[in-house]
């Protein structure tokens, strides 16, 4: 049986090879192992031996032909045998086709130096904020190095939090990122933003939730020496500007409720809905003993009894609250700042702030939620509010409805979000 002679692969990267020289001619007798032909690859020349003894027939490659690997270049036949009739492989072409057009050298179109500055440079965040606000960054004056436009410059141009660029900014944390106007949460005196986490878990997961630490609380900077309710509002406003939050649903608890009411009055329609939970600022009474005891406590033993007043069922506040409160207070030196806030806004156990006018001025969906058994601020403060403000007084609940009545609170906020979004559309 005739044995085929192929153009063998002799290099890992070889796809074609050139038959450079035959050492035997058609019809000539060859012996197994004898030098049969030479091939040339891109790398080197190589001798190919006859794979069998017999007569070379059906030579299908001329010297100089370039063929693909595995192509049959001839047959070694027994006497009188004819090679099988099979089409020989077409030569690949004796030369590699020249590329059309100019040859592109790698990298020759890439400038190695930056072009001369053209217009303003801007940070990615500034560009994003400008795009969202419909501003052209090129038109803005940059305050960064080499005039680079930074987020602050866009915020100034947009008039958000602008005036108070020097004001301390409250620390914020996105408990959840989401689409559309987010909830913004403001905690009460002595607490921090983490107080909202259990409630946020029950809310619509597609909606964002930004919680802020009030000045003098959590990770926020201390309040100014001459702290006022307006200073707290300004710190919150600055945080919202820094986070790029323009429109939102606002929720405030206790002292944070008072701040929320003031902020809602200031920002008007940018606040889609307003929910005040056991808010301060609606009446004069507050548990002054709690305020004093809370600030004076230096140990778990002296703090825990006061914290029990915060809820009808203290279990709902979570374990370790006293420890965490004292640890944070010690680490961050929160005591003096909180004392200043208490002295300025609630001197002598009396609420020296009044947010009723602000609440009346807010035109959007507004609700006030109290626990019927609130031991810190009496729920009767909800009496006599403007008629458009809905009031919930929850039975069996104390000063922290967001922890004590999570399901009810989640439902109320869901209704508020729906009402606020619908009104704007």
């Amino acid at each position, binding site marked *: 049986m005739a044995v085929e002679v192929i153009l063998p*692969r002799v*290099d890992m990267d070889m*796809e074609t090879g050139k038959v450079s020289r035959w050492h035997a001619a058609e019809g000539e007798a060859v012996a197994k192992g004898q030098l049969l032909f030479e091939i040339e690859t891109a790398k*080197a020349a190589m*001798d190919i031996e006859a794979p069998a003894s017999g007569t070379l027939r059906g030579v299908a490659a001329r010297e100089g032909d370039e063929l693909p*690997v*595995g192509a049959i270049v001839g047959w070694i036949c027994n006497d009188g045998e004819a090679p099988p009739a099979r089409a020989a492989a077409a030569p690949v072409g004796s030369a590699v086709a020249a590329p059309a057009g100019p040859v592109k050298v790698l990298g020759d179109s890439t400038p190695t130096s930056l072009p001369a500055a053209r217009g303003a440079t801007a940070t990615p965040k500034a560009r994003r904020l400008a795009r969202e606000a419909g501003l052209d960054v090129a038109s803005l004056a940059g305050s960064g190095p080499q005039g680079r436009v930074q987020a602050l410059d866009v915020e100034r141009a947009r008039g958000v939090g602008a005036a108070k660029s020097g004001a301390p900014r409250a620390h914020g944390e996105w408990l959840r990122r989401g689409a559309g106007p987010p909830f913004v949460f403001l905690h009460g005196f002595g607490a921090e933003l983490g107080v909202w986490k259990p409630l946020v878990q029950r809310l619509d997961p597609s909606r964002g939730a930004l919680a802020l630490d009030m000045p003098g609380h959590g990770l926020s900077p201390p309040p100014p020496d001459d702290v006022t309710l307006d200073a707290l509002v300004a710190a919150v406003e600055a945080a919202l500007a820094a986070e790029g939050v323009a429109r939102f649903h606002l929720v405030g608890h206790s002292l944070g409720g008072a701040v929320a009411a003031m902020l809602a009055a200031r920002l008007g329609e940018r606040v889609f809905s307003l929910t005040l939970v056991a808010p301060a600022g609606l009446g004069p009474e507050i548990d002054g003993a709690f305020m004093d005891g809370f600030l004076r406590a230096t140990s778990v033993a002296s703090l825990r009894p006061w914290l029990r007043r915060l809820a009808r069922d203290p279990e709902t506040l979570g374990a370790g609250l006293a420890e965490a409160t004292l640890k944070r207070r010690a680490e961050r030196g929160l005591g003096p700042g909180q004392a200043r806030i208490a002295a300025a806004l609630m001197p002598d156990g009396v609420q020296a702030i009044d947010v009723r006018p602000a609440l009346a001025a807010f035109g959007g969906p507004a609700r006030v939620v109290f626990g019927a058994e609130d031991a810190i601020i009496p729920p009767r403060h909800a009496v006599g509010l403007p008629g458009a403000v809905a009031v919930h007084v929850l039975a069996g609940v104390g000063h922290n409805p967001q922890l004590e009545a999570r399901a009810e609170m989640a439902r109320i906020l869901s209704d508020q979000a729906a009402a606020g979004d619908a009104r704007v559309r």
Partner: protein
Amino acid sequence: MTAARAEDAPPVAVANRPAIYDRVGAGGLREALRRMHLIRRFEETAEDFYVRGKSYGTMHLSIGQEATAVGVCAALGDSDYVTSTHRGHGHCIAKGAEVGRMFAEFLGRETGYCRGRGGSMHIADPAKGNLGANGIVGGGIPIAVGAALSAKRLRTGAVVASFFGDGANNEGAFHESLNIASLWKLPVLFVCENNQYGMSVAFARSTAVASVADRAAAYSMPGVTVDGNDFAAVAAAAFEAADRARRGGGPTLVECKTYRTRGHSRSDRNRYRTKDEIEAWKARDPIERFERELSALGVATAADAASLREAVEREIADGVAFAEASPAPSTAELMRDVHTPAAAAPR
């Protein structure tokens, strides 16, 4: 290796019969011959795949070295380990691998021993104790010592044969491994397949000692040199070394002088050796020699050998068919097995 047909073996002329043949048994000898043929035909078929451009990458053929692989593995059981080299197809078959899954690996198919992730240079069969071929010269030697440490610590009674070439005897890994294995009396057979060339450089041009076995003295272990083309000589040395290892006597260095009749890899142009030298070694072909001997001893007649070769041809053809019909790995599984999946991870 099984000795299934030992009882029906015809008696053998006692005079020329190597003593080790009694231990291997007639059935074992026929199986050894079958495996040597299977290796030869696997290599030739692999070469054919390569030259036709049907396979990918390169490969290293062990044609001419079959007696070494099969002779050493004759002394091993399935629970014993081997580590292998870039020229590892023979070790794999000698240790009992299926040629179909080897061809499949060679063609980069999902059914291959390494699911097409390893190729010719990494074929492994851990189920049969083959810890894998290795692309790094000397790479498997310390790994073999580690496997021997496991065998000793876990008291499995296993021994480990580490195949490597003469090129590896100048690697640091070789020297560190021999020292550690001897120091800790570990059950290792260091098997040097001295095929005369480290790629193109002749042994005498690379190595300061006359033979690799001389290195053993430096590590206080026995070192023997045998004719690597003589199955009986290799098997005798391997059994002795394995016995010693199993007794707790520590490692042995066995140098098998042999020859690869093909180039280092398929891109080898054979410029460093002469045709005469190659022809001289071909005349000492280990398979022809073994077959002649078994025939003379009456262990395998010419008819036995012919039917054995036919069976090997069928096994090769079936293996090729299996491999060619096997699917390529899915690119969706590119990242598979970089790490052990969490669910599969044993504690």
